[in-house]
């Protein structure tokens, strides 16, 4: 009698956990039907594994991922993500936004989908009409220094490409209490939603605007465009509280700002770019070139 077929489930899982490569875990589930049913449907995402990089310019319904560990490109069919833009990724899932306004989490390997409230349910949307082609959204544009706030119509493509920058997750979507946080609008405002929510709720829409957001060690941080670092308490009553953690930093002209988390702490990265403008056939062409990166580490005093 083959002893391996009698191996208790917990020991089979222990062997599976000892496998480093994701592919090996998938192949282990293709050995025989009883192992396939004993092991979890898909392997748990191991946090320390090198991530797959989603390559731009996907063709048709297939997406290409670069596996940095095995130095290979994997093509994965994703018919679920039609005319889509990827707005973020975490814990083995990608955040997909569609022209229709739908926003959902998609696991490229298991094909599971988790719906989030659509773009039309964000705090800045006054009205949404799917049939008003070219003017689907009526959006509140917040006032800047010399201009008052106003309503403006936007078409769905513009909203998809420019008015939803990024979505991050507090934890794996498989956990019941994950929170999705979005950086949206022309001026980088913040909203969140929890599992089961029908709409996105406002966290912060105060100037200066946010350039990046990150969950780091269980806390939500937002980086303002002047270098000010804020921490956001979503669960405060009656509404989320946003407090300063680090003051504004003198800003270098023309920089993009990012927040990066690592085991040694939170870091701010500035990408210094140089923008060139030229005219070709009466059209203004802007090209930008990255000159350097500056990395700042957050010091807790």
């Amino acid at each position, binding site marked *: 009698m083959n002893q*391996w077929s009698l191996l208790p489930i917990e020991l089979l899982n222990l062997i599976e956990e000892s496998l480093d490569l994701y592919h090996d875990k998938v192949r282990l589930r293709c*050995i025989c039907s009883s192992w396939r049913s004993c092991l979890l449907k898909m392997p748990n995402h191991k946090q320390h594994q090198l991530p797959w990089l989603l390559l731009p310019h996907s063709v048709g319904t297939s997406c290409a991922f670069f596996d940095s560990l095995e130095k290979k490109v994997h093509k994965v069919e994703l018919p679920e993500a039609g005319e889509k833009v990827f707005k973020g990724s975490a814990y083995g899932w990608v955040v997909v936004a569609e022209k229709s306004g739908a926003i959902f989490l998609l696991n490229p390997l298991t094909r599971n989908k988790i719906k989030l409230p659509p773009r039309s349910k964000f705090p800045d949307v006054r009205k949404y009409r799917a049939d008003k082609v070219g003017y689907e959204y009526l959006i509140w544009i917040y006032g800047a220094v010399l201009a008052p706030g106003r309503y403006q119509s936007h078409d769905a493509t513009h909203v998809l490409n420019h008015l939803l920058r990024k979505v991050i997750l507090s934890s794996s979507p498989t956990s019941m209490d994950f929170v999705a946080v979005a950086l949206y609008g022309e001026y980088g405002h913040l909203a969140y939603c929890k599992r089961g929510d029908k709409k996105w709720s406002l966290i912060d829409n105060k100037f200066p605007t946010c350039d990046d957001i990150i969950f780091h060690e269980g806390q939500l941080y937002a980086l303002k465009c002047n270098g000010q670092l804020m921490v956001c308490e979503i669960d405060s009553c009656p509404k989320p509280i946003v407090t300063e953690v680090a003051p504004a930093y003198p800003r270098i002209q023309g920089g993009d700002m990012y927040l990066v988390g690592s085991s040694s702490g939170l870091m701010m990265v500035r990408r210094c770019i140089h923008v060139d403008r030229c005219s070709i056939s009466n059209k203004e062409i802007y090209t930008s070139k990255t000159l350097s990166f500056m990395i700042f580490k957050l010091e807790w005093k």
Partner: protein
Amino acid sequence: MKFCTVKQYFDDENNNNVTNGIATTVIPLPNKHLKIKANNKEMEQYEQELLRNVMPQELTKLILAANYLNFKEALDFFCRTVANAIQNKSVDYVRKFFGLESDFEPGEEEKLCKEFAWSFEGVDED
């Protein structure tokens, strides 16, 4: 702490969980483990030796014995040994290693191959 189950083993008259041969391999392991804990290379060599001298079927007995003896370090070591032995190998190779046969329905296995085509590429030569 490591050997709390050992006493129970020797007390039980009819103990089928751990045969003598396996106990000989598992019980000396803690000493070796402690001695060469800092030296990963020697541990690798010991692993290679184990794989050469011990048939895969025996490995499962080692795992079951280590589990029964509640010997976590040995259990982790044997599971890692198995994992390393099947790393980046094809499904057929892994089946042969475990002495198992495919019992999928005819269409089912094809469906799996198609759905997970990306994970069947680039395996080591058998």
